[in-house]
């Protein structure tokens, strides 16, 4: 377990609101988490739970308007990223924090060759000459396992397959030796074998380069295989946070438990239908005053409709935003 005393990234009370024609949408509500150097933090949750928006908010990558990062602090290397001006923030983007996006088919610029796209951050952040940047770009392509790297630098994105393009994206994100790599569903658009290759590559690179990784996904299988620690998001909030083994062995939030139940099992008797979580995720048009999971929860209590639960400690490294984890409430109900 990496050292958690000195987190490289410490997010506290992040709140992001979208201004839409139908009113405000509270996409991220009071999200807090930290990331230790060299750690791989998994972020899971269904679509619309605020995973991507949270990570984009950290670096101001959301278009504003409509997005508005209202509250919170994002401490990175002794600075609050939310308070940096755009010029300093650009130095962090691509330089100290790398980003890999979901869809490798559209994330690369189709009219520039990949060499130029990898060299761009190198020249900007590291001030490399064209020659040095080209050499480094070739090195990076080799690092992410693209054969014949020197030739491939001159190729355009459409000449690469999906998996190869995602490797190029990873090479771009890694270009300037970032301290943190944020991977936003990097394998979702890929088929399963390619997904496995990319996962192996990432684990390998993390060990080699020692950077911290935030891995966003909605695939618990991926998380189980790769993460050190997991946060589960629901309705724009962190509902559970635990080391990966602890989370799978002892889930404390009803949403996490429901999520784990939805994983189809290979062994044992075949079920007639896949398990689902009944109901819809909440519409986040106001700051939540009740537990966001209330409507879909099978163990809801009267208190859940009155208050939005804070994150209660389950044990030393494990917390859950559920009144069932609140010792006071459990004692009261009992």
């Amino acid at each position: 377990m990496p050292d958690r005393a000195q987190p490289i990234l410490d997010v506290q009370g992040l709140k992001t609101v979208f201004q839409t024609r139908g009113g405000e949408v509270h996409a991220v509500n009071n999200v807090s988490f930290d990331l230790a150097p060299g750690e791989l933090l998994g972020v899971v949750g269904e679509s619309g739970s605020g995973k991507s928006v949270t990570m984009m908010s950290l670096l101001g990558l959301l278009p504003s308007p409509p997005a508005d990062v209202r509250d919170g602090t994002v401490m990175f290397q002794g600075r609050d990223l939310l308070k940096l001006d755009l010029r300093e923030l650009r130095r962090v983007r691509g330089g100290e924090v790398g980003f890999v996006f979901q869809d490798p088919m559209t994330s690369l610029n189709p009219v520039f060759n990949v060499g130029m796209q990898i060299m761009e951050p190198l020249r900007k952040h590291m001030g490399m000459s064209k020659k040095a940047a080209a050499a480094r770009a070739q090195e990076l392509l080799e690092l992410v396992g693209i054969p014949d790297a020197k030739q491939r630098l001159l190729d355009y994105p459409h000449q690469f397959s999906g998996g190869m393009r995602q490797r190029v994206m990873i090479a771009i994100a890694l270009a300037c030796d970032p301290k943190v790599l944020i991977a936003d569903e990097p394998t979702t658009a890929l088929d399963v074998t390619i997904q496995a290759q990319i996962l192996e590559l990432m684990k390998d690179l993390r060990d080699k380069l020692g950077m911290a990784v935030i891995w966003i996904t909605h695939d618990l299988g991926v998380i189980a295989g790769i993460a050190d620690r997991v946060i589960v998001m629901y309705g724009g909030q962190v509902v559970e946070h635990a080391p990966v083994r602890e989370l799978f062995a002892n889930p404390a939030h009803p949403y996490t438990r429901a999520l784990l139940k939805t994983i189809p099992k290979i062994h044992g008797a075949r079920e007639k239908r896949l398990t689902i979580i009944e109901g819809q995720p909440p519409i986040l048009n106001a700051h939540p005053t009740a537990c966001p999971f209330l409507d879909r929860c099978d163990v809801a209590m009267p208190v859940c409709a009155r208050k939005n639960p804070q994150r209660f400690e389950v044990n030393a490294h494990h917390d859950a935003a559920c009144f069932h984890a609140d010792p006071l409430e459990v004692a009261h109900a009992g």
Partner: protein
Amino acid sequence: MLTYTFRRLLLSIPTLLFIAFVIFMLLELAPGDPMGQMPLTIPDEVKQRMREALGLGEPWYIRFGLWLYQFFVVEPQYWIDSAFGTNFADGKQRIISFQSRSPVFDTIAQRLPQTLWVVGMSYVVGVAIALPIGIISAYRQYSVFDQAGTFISMIGFSVPPFFSGVLVIVIFSVQLGWLPSIYDTTHQVVDWETFKFQLRQMIMPVMVLALQTTAQVSRYMRASMLDNLGQDYVRTARAKGMSESVVVLKHVVRNSMIPVVTVIALGLPAIFGGAIITEQIFKVNGLGQLLILALQGADIPMVMTITFLLAVLIVLMNLIADVLYGVLDPRIRYD
């Protein structure tokens, strides 16, 4: 790419022959008589002899064949002769205008500079203004600038040059007296003063025509930019820490230019056609004016030749647009 270009060039030959045939037949079927503007005192038999002297007594296929021969063989031979002092075209008949009785190409060569100066310049100015407007309008969508740009484009689209031309003449020539209302074709640029005069007499026709070009091209550019600004690769460029100017002017504009270049290239032939109405208003005796006078006088060789030259340019610009498309977009492969 080279074989593609070559194949397209070969293919354009039958296309152009067919176009020549259609133009010829249309002119053949159209009413009108080259002798229509002759004085009424000339007896009909004399007029009939004059028609026959112009070759109108021959059947249409002979005349069409002769025109093709003159256009594709005699005229090039004549140019070669005048360039290298050879004498291939000796004794061969060039295409002659019914009205002026002088070679059609000589008249065109006289008129072309005026048209290129005024209409060509208006196109350059129009595109040069349109591209930044399109880029800024899209980047700041729904801003005051964008709204103003939309408004001006609307004016450019909906106000015809015969109105805006007269309007600027009334304002700047009649009321304010700043600019000459008539374009002086005989004016020679020899020094700074004459150059200034040339600029002053060009301003109004150029602006009237540029307004139309700007309206069109800026709309295309804006739409194309908007398509691209929302793309994932733009987010990637920002996530790499690129500055907004690099993101927009390099990544987005390069992609947005692909369809716009086609529009610009396809608009080019229209320049050589001259701006018929605007040239009339400002008395610029360019190709547009030449064409309209030739039409009125049933000057078939002149109309035929100018129209066909336009067709050649359109076919050529289509080809150039396609080739440029392949150059700008690496995903396009023609071979």
